[in-house]
């Protein structure tokens, strides 16, 4: 390395003046609440509209509960999502894209075991076009044979690409391990099933399940809420059904137990994925659980990250997060680690799980997590897209803007005792999970460590 004249690291790290005190925080300024309308149209669709932000855009999020018990449902649903926006009686695929592009717009659809999600955006003065294209697809999607055949073939290839991603493999293994045969575990369809899906099946599924009753539409942007609701009612007036959208059946409780080792050929790193039962957002204990989660591994300044990344260098990132489904909530803990240190990382993770209950978060840990949770709501909802996604997510639990507005106060009210109580949700015995990696390197140390099923 070139050696220009430079100071030593010791010289760089100190000044004549010496260490300086950390400035205190100024008085917080409270923002103003966005003007919001939250209503149900006569076709059963819940509509939430908020005026927010400083850019001339509008963000759209639609969520239609879209569960199904049939073994073929994931494949049909996936093909439906891929072809929903590929043409209607009024518009070809290219025309849909062209009309949206003219207003700087975009629409896309995705599906998971719980719901069909349609997301999009456009310039605010193009809101009518955005809603018109959406309404057109909801009421008039044709699922033309050739578009469907093309998407079906591409899906088979894309599924292969997706299934080669380590995180996808780990997710599928964790879902099977936690929930067995429950439809929630079938997030990505089998390629073979996709290949058998017919256009008629997809049209039938659309008629049965792409329905307004039980679904939610969120619009956020530089728009007038009352006018927007009228416009939505007009654009979607032809979208009707007597049926209600299909909610997923209740999930079984996550039971603690052994972690299962899953072999992946050629892996140089392992995916560690643990899970335990959590709570719903509406549970009175949820704010305390949220703070306990942050203190454990829910943000960078947490015990897990400070231990396995910043102290030991076992991982680039470790996380602890909640997953919410209607009427349920679970805890997910993840880290990716080199094969050589995987067993050590599991040991340290279990140590931190045990320590959270036995040595509960201190006042300063609680305070830091509390401020982060409150600040996080502010920053994540300061953009139109952030607020739209947040409102859409909350709506799936039946919650709205008023819940969001009141949440900082709920977080402020949490005591250290309540956090200590909540910490027991992270008891090591409450967790189960999977490790995906090179079994040849992992099985010895993991077997020695115990609590791991090694095939």
């Amino acid at each position: 390395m070139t050696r220009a004249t430079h100071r030593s690291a010791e010289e760089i790290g100190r000044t004549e003046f010496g260490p300086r005190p950390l400035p205190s925080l100024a008085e917080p300024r409270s923002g103003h609440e966005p003007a919001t309308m939250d209503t149900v149209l006569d076709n059963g669709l819940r509509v939430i509209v908020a005026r927010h932000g400083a850019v001339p855009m509008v963000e759209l999020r639609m969520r239609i509960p879209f569960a199904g018990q049939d073994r073929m449902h994931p494949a049909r649903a996936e093909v439906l999502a891929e072809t929903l926006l590929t043409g209607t009686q009024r518009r070809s695929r290219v025309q849909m894209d062209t009309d949206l592009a003219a207003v700087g717009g975009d629409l896309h659809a995705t599906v998971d075991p719980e719901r069909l999600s349609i997301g999009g955006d456009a310039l605010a003065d193009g809101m009518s076009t955005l809603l018109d294209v959406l309404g057109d697809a909801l009421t008039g999607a044709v699922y033309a044979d050739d578009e469907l055949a093309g998407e079906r073939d591409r899906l088979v290839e894309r599924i292969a690409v997706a299934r080669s991603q380590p995180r996808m493999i780990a997710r599928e293994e964790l879902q099977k391990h936690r929930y067995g045969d429950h439809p929630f575990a079938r997030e990505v369809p089998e390629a073979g099933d996709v290949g058998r899906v017919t256009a008629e099946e997809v049209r039938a599924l659309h008629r049965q399940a792409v329905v307004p009753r039980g679904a939610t539409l969120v619009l956020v942007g530089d728009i007038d809420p009352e006018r927007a609701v009228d416009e939505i009612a007009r654009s979607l007036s032809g979208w009707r059904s007597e049926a209600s959208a299909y909610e997923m059946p209740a999930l079984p409780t996550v039971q603690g137990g052994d972690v299962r080792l899953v072999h992946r050929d050629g892996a140089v790193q392992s995916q560690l994925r643990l899970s335990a039962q959590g709570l719903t957002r509406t549970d009175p204990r949820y704010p305390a659980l949220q703070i306990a989660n942050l203190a454990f591994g829910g943000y960078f300044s947490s015990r897990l990250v400070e231990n396995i990344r910043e102290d030991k260098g076992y991982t680039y990132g470790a996380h602890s997060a909640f997953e919410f489904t209607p009427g349920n909530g679970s805890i997910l803990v993840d880290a990716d680690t080199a094969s050589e240190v995987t067993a050590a990382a599991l040991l340290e993770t279990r140590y931190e799980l045990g320590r959270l209950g036995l040595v509960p978060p201190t006042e300063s840990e609680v305070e830091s997590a509390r401020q982060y949770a409150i600040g996080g709501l502010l920053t994540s909802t300061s953009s139109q897209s952030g607020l739209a996604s947040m409102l859409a997510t909350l709506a799936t639990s039946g919650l709205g803007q008023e819940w969001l507005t009141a949440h900082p106060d709920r977080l402020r009210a949490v005591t250290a005792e309540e956090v200590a109580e909540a910490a027991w949700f992270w008891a090591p015995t409450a967790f189960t999970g999977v490790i995906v990696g090179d079994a040849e390197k992992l099985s010895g140390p993991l077997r020695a460590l115990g609590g791991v099923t090694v095939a």
Partner: protein
Amino acid sequence: MVEPQLHRVTLANGLRVVLAPDSERGSSAQGGPPVVGVSVHYDVGFRSEPEGRTGFAHLFEHLMFQGSESLEKLEHFRHVQGSGGIFNGSTHQDYTDYFQVLPSNALERALFLEADRMRAPKITEENLRNQVDVVKEEIRLNVLNRPYGGFPWILLPPVLYSTFANAHNGYGDFTDLEQATVDDCAAFFDTFYAPGNAVLTIAGDIDVDHAIELVQKHFGDVPARPVTARPSFAEPFPSRELRDQHTDPHAPLPAIALGYRLPDPVSELDTYLANVVLAAVLSDGDASRLQQRMVYQDSLVVDVHAGAGLMGAPLDARDPDTFTVTAIHTPEVGSDRVVGAIDEELERIAADGPSADELARVTARWSAGLYREHDRLTSRTLDLGSAELIHGRAELISELPGRVQEITAQDVAAAAKALRPDARAVLEIEPASEENSDGGAV
């Protein structure tokens, strides 16, 4: 919409400061969210790292979070997050950025944290070894253990470029990372992290005068140090088509990347922007040329993408910069057919240019995309900072929609014509074996 009014000051030590208060972003922003963004862009990226030290700029970025004269290891994170904020840093070809987005009552704290590590970061052997391990995990996660890892940003440059600066792996080889010393860090800091080599950006819920006072208070006594003139990384365009192959042990399907040289983003900005429009005409949306032809009509590829900028975004680097086209295809469709179809579409645009409709579509989507991007305070702060650093004009980010609107069909045709098959790189990715396509999970 009223564009934000920018304010600037340069401190005596050379630190350039850009301020973009919300209060001037238009009437609907009055009483906007009480959130502030603070970023520092240093004028050094992985192109400037020394030979034999690949990945050093990025490794050093990690070390800037590991404590300073006033803060023990871990305290930086705790103070940002414990104030309700988020943070991160990232290393690019020509710059390294650090940012915080926090409730606006934490502005002074954010400035203190950035100033303290600009003045006196604490670089220790223990932290260096720890972060070498963390960075190796980052590389395993994003490159070595993942299908298409580093494609194309690590794999394409060594085919297209010939100098160390432009061609090497910016994430770094494990051997180079392991050999990095504390003294290398000291030399790197003193060479590149002077206040005169940085831009501080503050955006969001701020009062300009008060913010400038706080900047003076915390950054004013960071001592000035000499700034070395940045060398030119220019190199000649290829004089023939350059080809290479790479075997990917995890990829289920073959892939291909084409790399072309772009015009100088700074001195030939409008010509560069014509390439940005060309990329959108080629692959943005279902109605775009390559999607229509290669995905829907001929079913040649699973996925295709064209873009200006090696790291996935335009205007992120100085000259030389790269135009890329990437595609994942099935083994039955050979790479020649994929390249052939791209060439034909480029020739068509070179001959006839895009239609008025295509241009209008791209322009509207581009403007909307920028509005949307800059509605997020993190992106707005970072883009203001990088535009100030690379172009000397943070204003550029609000001028872009207008400038893109003025790009003509002839400009786009000329851009397509300049992407010559005899002056490009072609990189083929081959799966290691057929068996990978079942995902390998048993």
